[in-house]
């Protein structure tokens, strides 16, 4: 039977894709073509907000770039700065002390907790579970507060620095952090249970967007997306950067490979991160000041190149920094964010699923959330254009009712 109508669903989303991604202001277009309910093709378009950060880094000095790099992404600014700073340290042969290495991990794990809670909250909202969204976001504030205590800012931390970090913590701060984290743990355990047992969540997520391990590796997918399909990739465990060689943790993997498994991997990682934060607060070494003297840092960079990896919340994040030894500016900085692979290379995942599954799959890949803009549904026969928000499409009348034109 011939296809009689095409429903074109252009999503205008803001996700951290590519090297230039200000977490909240970059749109990407997923253009989905559906035959009835079923999606038959998805085109992914990017580049609506290309800021040219790689070029900007070439035009600024190595040290200024630390602050530019922090602005690549708001949600994961500490990991970005960490990867870049470690690349500089590799070129300069500088090593931070143990206290600084532990504090770096502390900041990065707090960031992981709040990012994973955020995307799980958004998933709850997308499938129409508004109350759960509100509750998770409320408890996420505890982590934001903890991050503020450690780094001095809720979001833009600018915490990393060549040879160390920018702020130390004292015993008063340490007690505050302990209290916040101990309050957080039972809440996370509760939310994990909700995701494990709630019937609505299970119905919407299980078997949606299933990924085979071979698809993960051949498409270069990373982070929780890969780990939920049983591919054990974790830069923390393989590169053992900063203090990850001393702090005990497990790499969480699951074998289901569907959207539900991806969300569960994130919850388990939050619990692992809470364990790591508690371990750090307990065993924080005292081998000197973690804040290096800026005046003593080398002004001139020798020629060299470094490629560092960091396990960002969304997967392996890599930085390539090259110095030609001639000036104060890097010759080349290349950033490859996990969403760059996870979003651009996953057009195949949507095919065969229904339209309400599209936001579920996209959310399970963890794009940036404020992405929620508008969707256009075009009926070719009647020549009518509908506009609905992604939220409605995911969980409102478009999601809960069988959709027909």
């Amino acid at each position, binding site marked *: 039977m011939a296809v009689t109508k095409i429903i074109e669903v252009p999503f205008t989303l803001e996700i951290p894709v*590519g090297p230039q991604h200000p977490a909240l202001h970059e749109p990407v277009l997923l253009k989905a073509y559906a035959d009835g309910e079923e999606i038959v093709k998805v085109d992914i378009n990017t*580049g609506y907000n290309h800021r040219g950060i790689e*070029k900007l880094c070439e035009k600024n000095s190595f040290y200024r770039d630390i602050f530019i790099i922090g602005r690549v992404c708001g949600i994961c600014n500490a990991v970005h700065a960490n990867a870049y700073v470690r690349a500089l340290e590799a070129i300069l042969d500088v090593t931070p002390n143990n206290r600084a290495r532990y504090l770096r991990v502390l900041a990065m794990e707090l960031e992981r907790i709040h990012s994973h809670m955020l995307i799980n909250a958004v998933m709850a909202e997308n499938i129409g579970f508004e109350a759960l969204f509100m509750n998770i976001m409320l408890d996420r504030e505890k982590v934001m507060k903890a991050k503020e205590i450690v780094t001095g800012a809720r979001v833009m931390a600018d915490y990393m620095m060549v040879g160390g970090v920018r702020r130390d913590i004292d015993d008063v701060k340490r007690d505050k952090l302990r209290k916040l984290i101990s309050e957080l743990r039972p809440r996370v355990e509760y939310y994990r249970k909700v995701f494990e047992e709630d019937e609505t969540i299970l119905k919407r997520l299980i078997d949606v967007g299933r990924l085979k391990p071979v698809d993960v590796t051949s498409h270069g997918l990373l982070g929780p997306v890969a780990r939920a399909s049983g591919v054990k990739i974790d830069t923390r465990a393989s590169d053992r950067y900063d203090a990850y060689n001393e702090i005990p943790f497990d790499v969480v993997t699951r074998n289901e490979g569907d959207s539900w498994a991806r969300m569960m991997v994130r919850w388990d990682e939050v619990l692992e991160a809470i364990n790591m934060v508690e371990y750090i607060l307990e065993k924080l070494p005292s081998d000197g000041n973690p804040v290096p003297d800026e005046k003593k840092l080398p002004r001139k960079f020798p020629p060299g190149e470094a490629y*560092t990896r960091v396990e960002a919340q969304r997967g392996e994040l890599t930085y390539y920094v090259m110095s030609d030894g001639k000036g104060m500016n890097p010759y080349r900085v290349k950033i490859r964010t996990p969403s760059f692979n996870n979003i*651009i290379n996953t057009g195949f995942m949507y095919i065969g699923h229904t339209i309400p599954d599209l936001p579920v799959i996209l959310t399970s890949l963890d794009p940036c959330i404020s992405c929620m803009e508008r969707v256009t549904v075009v009926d070719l026969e009647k020549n009518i254009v509908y506009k609905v928000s992604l939220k409605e499409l995911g969980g409102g009348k478009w999601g809960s009712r069988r959709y027909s034109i």
Partner: protein
Amino acid sequence: MAVEEKLSFMDKYVVEKGFVKPNRRLFTIRSEHVRQVFTEFIERLGRENFYLSTIVGTDMKDEGRIRLDYYVVLLPEEETIVIRTYLPRDNPVVDSIIDLLPGALSGECETYDLLGVVFKGNSFLKRGFFIPQDLVEQDRYPLRKDSGV
């Protein structure tokens, strides 16, 4: 199997060996061998035992060539190796590996858009994938050192 042993088949292609800090093995190969190397990767290691992490293109203006680095992560050791090749700056063309590894899509599209490296056989290449329309119209590649961007 040790990583050296796994990569022993590379020897016939390698022009030069080295390291990128910190401890990433670097293999320089000729640009016409890129496809063959990745074909052998798939044959010998299997699709599930490595992934292409990223493609980094760098304009080496003074040398008159463009450097292309493929960062490959071997599993399950999760060790990153670098496969490096050089292309002439006035005609940077290399065979695409997108049909072998779909994961090369993002890297190839980006390198084409920003640096002008043509991946022969990749039908998804287009200008304006990232960069704004005015630069596309002026036919400029922002990451080239003489682009004036």
